[in-house]
């Protein structure tokens, strides 16, 4: 069974072997409002834990997307670039951002479980 964890920057990460799928949480989309632009990292590039790996923009403002773990970008989701509103519709499934071949599984250890994240999101948005 694959493991889903969450970052304080409101990204989710789903690990399958050494392949990770990363996106932003439903809570993040609710804070952002209508998303109208998405920029993704280049396939083949390397991204470092907590580094910038994309951008989302709502009608109101731009926000960086961070990667919760380090790795090589092996795939990106063109669907959300073509139609950014999909991120509001289905943020934690079909509207994923990018996939990584991860370097160090232990980087997952500092991330939050679903329960921990929900508590964190509630506290920080209050």
């Amino acid at each position, binding site marked *: 069974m694959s493991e889903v964890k969450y970052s304080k920057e409101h990204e989710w990460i789903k690990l399958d072997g050494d392949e990770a799928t990363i996106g932003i949480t439903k809570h993040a989309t609710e804070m952002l409002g209508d998303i*109208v*632009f998405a920029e993704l990292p280049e396939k083949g590039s390397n991204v470092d834990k907590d580094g910038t790996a994309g951008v989302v923009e709502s*009608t109101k403002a*731009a926000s960086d997307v961070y990667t919760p773990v380090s790795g090589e970008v092996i795939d990106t989701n063109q669907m959300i670039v073509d139609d950014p509103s999909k991120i509001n519709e289905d943020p934690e499934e079909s509207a994923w951002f990018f996939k990584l071949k991860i370097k160090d599984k232990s980087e997952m250890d500092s991330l939050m479980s679903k329960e921990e994240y929900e508590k964190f999101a509630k506290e920080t948005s209050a």
Partner: protein
Amino acid sequence: MSIKKTSLNNLHIKYGAKLVEFAGYQMPIQYKDGIIQEHKYTRSHSGIFDVSHMGQLFISGSDDLAIDLEKIFPADLKKLKINQSKYSFLMNNKGGIQDDLIITKTSDGFLIILNAACKYNDYEVIKSKLDNQYKLNLDDSLSLIALQGPEAKNVLNKVIPGCDSLKFMNGNNYVYKNEKVYITRSGYTGEDGFEISIKHSDVETFVESLIENGSKLIGLGARDTLRMEAGLCLYGNDLDNDTSPIEANLKWAIPKSRIETEFVGSEVLKNQFQSGVKKLRVGIKPDSKVIARGNTKIYNDKNQEIGKVTSGTFGPSVEHPIAMGYVDNSYSTVNTKIFLEVRGKKIPANICNLPFYKKNYVKGEINV
């Protein structure tokens, strides 16, 4: 200073508003539907905007009032008919804009609608320039509601019959629940619409009846995307103390009859009319889907900085990023290729005509 609330605060909360602080007031940035749906609803049906944070300044006194106000504002106030409105500016001596405003002639003087963030300063400036000879009332007993969109006239006519006969940039007195309301046909969205000045005690019932007749509350977020598509300026972003109406491409708001006369800032303006300006406000359309926000630097094809974006967003009706800003006048021609620096990259864009979205006003006079 504590944050102020408008008389519709409870209603905003009832309809699921996300509240933010704006110009010292707690205001709705959006409701449950979100900015894009609210924007589109205003363009296709009608939207209700709480703009009670704006200033409603009533000035009355002797017959010389129009003459004295013309010494301040570059508008044709002596010729203005009762209930007629004009867009104008409060300028400083350098011709910079301290506020942009709408002046309406009333039966006993003038009503000036001021931006929320500027209203107290405007009041002091106008009062001192009028030498305390007139009665000034920055009336805080009134709410101000804008109703905008193609259905605005039908919705408002059901609640206050007769108002659909108003012409654009004209106003009149009406009665709602046995109380006087003052309505003008004007707005800030590029759509036909009205602004209704109404007592605080009646405003909640009034807005609920607009909602019952098919309108929806719209937040400041959609108000901003609507006005940007319409090519209209936001004071503090696109207009400021260092920018003149000529530079802001708002020359049309200064009647020819006033160019040779005196008002605050007239010397600078006269000079700019004759010799031209160095910078000019333009519309900007990025080639790609990248959004250039306010303060984005603008470059020419030789990588030289030529200006700055002052407002930028995604236009929900034009379905493309849009922006406006100031460029060196030699780059202001439509279709000039420019580059916008966004996150370190130079994004190609073109100077384009304003508005981005075609206006839909009900014309009563042609002066635009």
